[in-house]
């Protein structure tokens, strides 16, 4: 690749100011002996290999080493001594996870809480997505913006808002007591219920958006055909709409379920001391116990737990791309 010759006539326009920059970059690259193409691939490629894939391999490595009181707090996995490479593979961390009922319980709890929250999110998100997809184009854009707007405001502050709603002298209890419906405040904060509410609330946009994208593409004539053939609206919904929106449902559910399993902020702020979620266990292993190898092993097992949902999501997204492409 060579620099763009100076003499080439340029079309006038507001973009011409950018040309010298591109010329310079092109010249610099060709002098360094790079083909532009491989450099364009290399920049994001190397960055992601270095700061995304390699870190996961480091976690896998440290999950196999032994904890020690040192800086950093683990023993090296391999060492050169007297010309030999000594490799010390230590499966003890994984055996420890299997042995201690706390960890297994935390995995089961996380999956259970995430699954229930995902189901509730679907129940709320589906009608909302359907409503948005079926409304007039102008209203549609406003409603979509209303769904996305909370996503742009701080996640942490939206979780925080629920503390004020759910606590003993919080908004909900004050309201119910002033109406005389209850006499004593309900215990809602620091329970699993609060965690469900927090997850459903913060992840609702992740459910609505893929569902909407799917529902808005459905061919109206299919519903009309179904109605013309005498199907009732509910029959049409279960035999036409629902099967056609399966990909949207899977995508939305996975986008809620996967991050919910590893969630830390919501159980930490809204959950009780006995709300065991694996993200919180990992956090405590790392920050309180300073046991890096165990924290790494917890992370690797979490990855394996999430492998199936992640693959499911990728398959649905790949299928969508094929339809569009």
């Amino acid at each position, binding site marked *: 690749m060579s620099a763009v010759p100076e003499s080439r006539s340029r079309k006038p326009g507001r973009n011409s100011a950018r040309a010298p920059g591109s*010329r310079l970059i092109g010249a610099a690259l060709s002098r360094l002996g790079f083909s532009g193409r491989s450099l364009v691939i290399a920049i994001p490629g190397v960055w992601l290999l270095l700061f995304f894939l390699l870190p996961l391999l480091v976690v896998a490595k440290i999950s196999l080493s032994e904890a020690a009181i040192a800086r950093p707090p683990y023993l090296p996995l391999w060492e050169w001594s007297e010309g030999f490479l000594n490799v010390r593979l230590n499966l003890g961390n994984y055996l420890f996870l299997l042995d201690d009922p706390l960890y297994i319980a935390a995995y089961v709890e996380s999956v259970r809480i995430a699954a229930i929250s995902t189901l509730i999110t679907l129940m709320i998100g589906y009608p909302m997505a359907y409503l948005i997809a079926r409304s007039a184009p102008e209203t549609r854009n406003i409603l979509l913006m209303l769904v996305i707007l909370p996503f742009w405001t*701080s996640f942490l502050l939206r979780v925080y808002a629920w503390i*004020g709603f759910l606590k003993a002298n919080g908004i909900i209890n004050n309201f119910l007591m002033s109406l005389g419906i209850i006499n004593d405040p309900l215990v809602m904060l620091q329970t699993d219920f609060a965690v469900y509410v927090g997850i459903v609330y913060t992840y609702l946009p992740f459910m609505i958006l893929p569902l909407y994208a799917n529902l808005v593409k459905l061919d109206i004539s299919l519903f009309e055909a179904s109605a013309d053939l005498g199907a009732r609206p509910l029959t049409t919904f279960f035999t036409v709409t629902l099967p056609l929106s399966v990909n949207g449902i899977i995508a939305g559910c996975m986008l809620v379920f996967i991050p919910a399993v590893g969630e830390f902020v919501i159980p930490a702020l809204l959950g009780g001391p006995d709300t065991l979620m694996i993200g919180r266990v*990992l956090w405590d292993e790392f920050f309180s116990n300073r046991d890096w190898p165990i924290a790494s092993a917890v*992370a690797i097992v979490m990855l394996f737990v999430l492998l199936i949902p992640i693959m499911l999501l990728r398959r649905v997204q790949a299928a969508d791309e094929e339809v569009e492409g």
Partner: protein
Amino acid sequence: MKSRSRLLQMVGLLGFIFLYAPILSLVIYSFNESKLVTVWGGFSTRWYGELFRDPQILGAAWISVKIAFLSASIAIVIGTLASFVLIRFARFRAKSLLSMLITAPLVMPEVIIGLSLLLLFVAMEGVIGWPGGRGLVTIIIAHSTFGAAYAAVVIQSRLVDMDLSIEEAAQDLGAKPVRVFFDITLPVIAPALVSAWLLAFTLSLDDLVIASFVSGPGASTLPMVIFSKVRLGVSPDVNALATIIIGLVSLGVIVAALQMNRSKRQSEQR
């Protein structure tokens, strides 16, 4: 039929109330005189005053803005290059790997991203002596990586929709690929770049978990300060802070929406 669509509208309305009631409550109670956040004690702006006199919060906010600005800028460069490669380049061997790497941070739990990057930084420091300690630089790297993943989603969808014929015309007229990119592609996808930058900026400003892992002493971001305050219970100055953030975000989104509407109308008139 009529009653059913009425029912659907009711559900939708309840859904939107569910989305907005907590946010509204934050705003309303930020003007509460009482220190008991949920008991109304009269209108007051005293918590805003306290907020602006709190050096810890102000310092953390400044650190967060710096990190968000730099990481969003790096994120759109990486995101744009990755998107361009994935959408425009012919198949090559590592293409599916790149596609996987750029989307994977979207579905990776934050605790794993945070832990893995911290362990990488510690290991790198042991091997090559860089980065010396943890702080702003390590947070910026971490945020750029997941910001790039979100930026790539936004930019890819714009690149897919883009009319290829302009790029082809430029190429036919003899423009080199680099020049086509800077003169044609970049201006066309500019609106997507702006929204991608804003998205990465917001996500960085908002992140607690990853920053907590890769941060070091002296680099407490705003979410880290808020989290330590909130963990001890509700505090009215956090409500004031939330109101300011909500105000800024709503303003930004409304301006962006108006801008998009106007440019859409202009392109329709043409």
